[in-house]
């Protein structure tokens, strides 16, 4: 029995459908991310779970109880808003204490729980400050402490890290994940950052135009995307258009321009148009030709610390290829190279595939 369950949830604003027939089951203690481009209905979904928006159709269950039309102040969920929504007229301590006051927790216990939860997010020394005197990261932690102190059955996070700079964001991702696992709180994170979704979640729901396109664990999502949309949105990839020439068990051979290559995929039929996804790190460059390789020329290269990203002109078009950094730049602009791949690195997706 799943802990949070959305059944065919739909939300329409006038004639515009923001969330379209979304179904999702989340286990207790699971960390699920809603990932998708701006405007795809992530926030709307989260707000329906929180009770801040009424679904047009469908049902929402929490721990076996139907909460579809329950008031937000009866649901007891913990929410971290994108703008943090801290109460500017209250100190850090008062902000965190608010939810407990609403629950009529008596003073002694309240103070103790506020202190403990501020310690959890390492803010105990700033308890008397007002939100305006805090940095972005500190505000984010106050918002988290305020949501966690009420010991909610479910924690809802709406792009909580999007206002932070890159370094702090990575630190907070790790901190948040560790804390979530310690507390074992069921968590739903909204994000449009695929790296964040990949690094933090047990499962990812990729959304597009109000629909759940694919629901899978991060590794599966990355390795076996079912549509071109997912493969392009989750991680970097090279997308090529091809035609199936021979269907094989668990895959097919396809022709892309003049080049024939074989890869893995489902739902393919002879003569059908396919999208071929080649991840930059699944490709390899060398100076000599081998079998299963095509020649090309380096047209640009950038250094990214732990790896290089090259842009190669080849018979397959312009491809991105990444090479691990081993201390010396392996190729320079204009160098002739050969691009290699293995069959497992080639992902085939039927064109215009239905979702899911």
């Amino acid at each position: 029995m799943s802990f949070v369950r959305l059944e065919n949830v739909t939300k329409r604003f006038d004639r515009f459908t923001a969330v379209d027939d979304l179904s999702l089951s989340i286990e207790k203690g699971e960390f699920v991310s809603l990932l998708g481009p701006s405007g795809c209905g992530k926030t709307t979904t989260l707000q329906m779970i929180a009770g801040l928006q009424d679904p047009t159709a469908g049902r929402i269950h929490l721990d076996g109880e139907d909460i579809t039309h329950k008031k937000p102040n009866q649901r007891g969920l913990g929410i971290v808003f994108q703008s943090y929504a801290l109460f500017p007229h209250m100190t850090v301590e008062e902000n965190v204490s608010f939810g407990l006051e609403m629950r009529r927790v008596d003073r002694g216990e309240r103070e103790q729980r506020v202190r403990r939860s501020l310690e959890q997010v390492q803010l105990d020394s700033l308890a008397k400050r007002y939100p305006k005197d805090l940095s972005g990261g500190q505000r984010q932690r106050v918002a988290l402490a305020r949501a966690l102190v009420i010991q909610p059955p479910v924690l809802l996070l709406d792009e909580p890290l999007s206002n932070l700079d890159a370094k702090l964001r990575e630190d907070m991702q790790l901190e948040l994940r560790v804390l979530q696992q310690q507390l074992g709180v069921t968590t739903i994170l909204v994000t449009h950052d695929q790296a964040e979704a990949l690094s933090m979640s047990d499962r990812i729901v990729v959304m597009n135009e109000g629909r759940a396109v694919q629901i899978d664990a991060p590794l599966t999502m990355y390795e076996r995307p079912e549509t071109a949309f997912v493969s392009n949105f989750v991680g970097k990839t090279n997308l090529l258009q091809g035609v199936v020439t021979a269907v094989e068990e668990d895959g097919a051979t396809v022709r892309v321009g003049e080049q024939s290559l074989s890869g893995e995929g489902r739902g393919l039929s002879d003569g059908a148009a396919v999208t071929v996804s080649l991840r930059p790190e699944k490709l390899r460059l060398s100076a000599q030709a081998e079998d299963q390789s095509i020649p090309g020329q380096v047209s640009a290269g950038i250094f990214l610390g732990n790896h290089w990203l090259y842009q190669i002109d080849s018979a397959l078009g312009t491809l991105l290829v990444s090479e691990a950094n081993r201390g010396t730049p392996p190729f320079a602009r204009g160098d002739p190279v050969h691009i290699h791949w293995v069959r497992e690195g080639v992902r085939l997706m039927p064109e215009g595939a239905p979702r899911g």
Partner: protein
Amino acid sequence: MAEGGSPGSRPYWLSAPGLVLFATLLGVPLFTTLMLSFYSFDYATGGIQTDFTPANYLEIFQDSYFHLIFGRTFGVALLVTLICALIGAPEAYILARMRNPWKSLFLLVILGPLLISVIVRTLGWALLLGSKGAISEGLQMLGIISDPISLMFTTTGMVIALVHVLVPFMVLSVWASLQKLDLQTEDAALTLGASRFTVLRRVVLPQIMPGILSGSLIVFALTASAFATPSIIGGRRLKVVATTAYDEYLSTLNWPLGAAIAVVLLVANVIAITSYNRMVERRYAKIFE
């Protein structure tokens, strides 16, 4: 340097014409009023003696008649301020939550009266408040009162008319602070278990308090020095400071006493406003930028 001293002094030179105009139009009359208030008036000849005496001030501070008038003025000002806050703050909040086109429409309805002269609006109230006015007739028709009543020349009537005139200032001021309010703080409070009422009381109200306080300041200052409305609704029977000063000037022709009354009103107003402002700033500087 050729062009008017160092570059740092240029702004002063550039604003000099404005300053001169300002000084002439405000400073000079203010100064002559101040001087005038120390002169004395000879009732026998009706002439103004240019002696220099604090007699007028002593009279104001000792005569219980003036105590009554000043007491009434500031009492009315406080009451009007309070009522404006009670009406204006919810009004602004509801307005801010409306959707367009209703929002723009109602904003216009609220601010529209500011475009009409205070005198015209007050004369309108005089029609409504009289013993044959709509209020009296209406109450009689509903059977709430049996004999006609008139709210003309009463404090109640004056307060009603002043509130009507001044409530837009409160709405504007609260409106401005509502623009800064993060709507999500209300959602946050709600999801933390607060009832709608608690959200208003503990989250919305404290955040719009600066707006209410600065609105109060405007309303208080304008009420305390209001002239048109009190003179039409209150007339001679129910004088306030401004109408008293006016009468000293124009009926009694005791200009020095009138000037002294005006000066006391000004000083009292300035003291009330600055001390209030200081108190508010001390309280909110910590919280809001």
